């Protein structure tokens, strides 16, 4: 799994941010490429560039090995993302791709998945129920 971060800042800004702040949060700094999108060209392609503010909002896209977008999430600037749900989605899509099984709501790694055959229609309740918390 590869991460690419993107903002409208210059690569020089990314360098200084990594060296002065991120490297104090994460040992050795963040390990992924920090992309510069000055002018918002990439953000516009993905529909996450805010023309008025001149920045990219918090868009996150999960792209599979064939270059297909499998999942996306977009948040406004004041709230940060939660990586636990991202990791769950990555594991679910990887499992689905490897097994062709389908993944029920709330699935966590290790939980059963479903084989999508016509016999299953109307009988999912026999093998799967939602978590009650």
């Amino acid at each position: 799994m590869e991460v690419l971060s993107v903002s409208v800042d210059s690569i020089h800004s990314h360098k200084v941010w990594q060296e002065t702040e991120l490297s104090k949060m994460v040992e050795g700094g963040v390990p992924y490429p920090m992309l510069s999108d000055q002018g918002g060209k990439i953000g516009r392609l993905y529909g996450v560039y805010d023309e008025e503010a001149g920045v990219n909002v918090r868009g996150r896209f999960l792209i599979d090995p064939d270059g297909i977008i499998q999942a996306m999430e977009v948040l406004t600037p004041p709230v940060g993302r939660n990586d636990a749900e991202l990791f769950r989605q990555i594991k679910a899509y990887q499992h689905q791709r490897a097994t062709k099984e389908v993944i029920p709501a709330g699935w966590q790694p290790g939980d059963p998945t479903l084989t999508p055959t016509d016999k299953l229609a109307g009988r999912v309740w026999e093998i799967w129920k939602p978590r009650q918390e």
Partner: protein
Amino acid sequence: MTVFVGKPAPNFTAKAFHNGAFKTVKLEDYRGKWVVLCFYPGDFTYV
């Protein structure tokens, strides 16, 4: 062009800072791998 789930991710080329050096990143070079593409408003902001 609109991005949508189940559709191809638009290709792009960008300048990047990675492992202490400046380089160029092309999305299509990541074919064959899972990629998480994360946009954020700006360096040095709080969240």
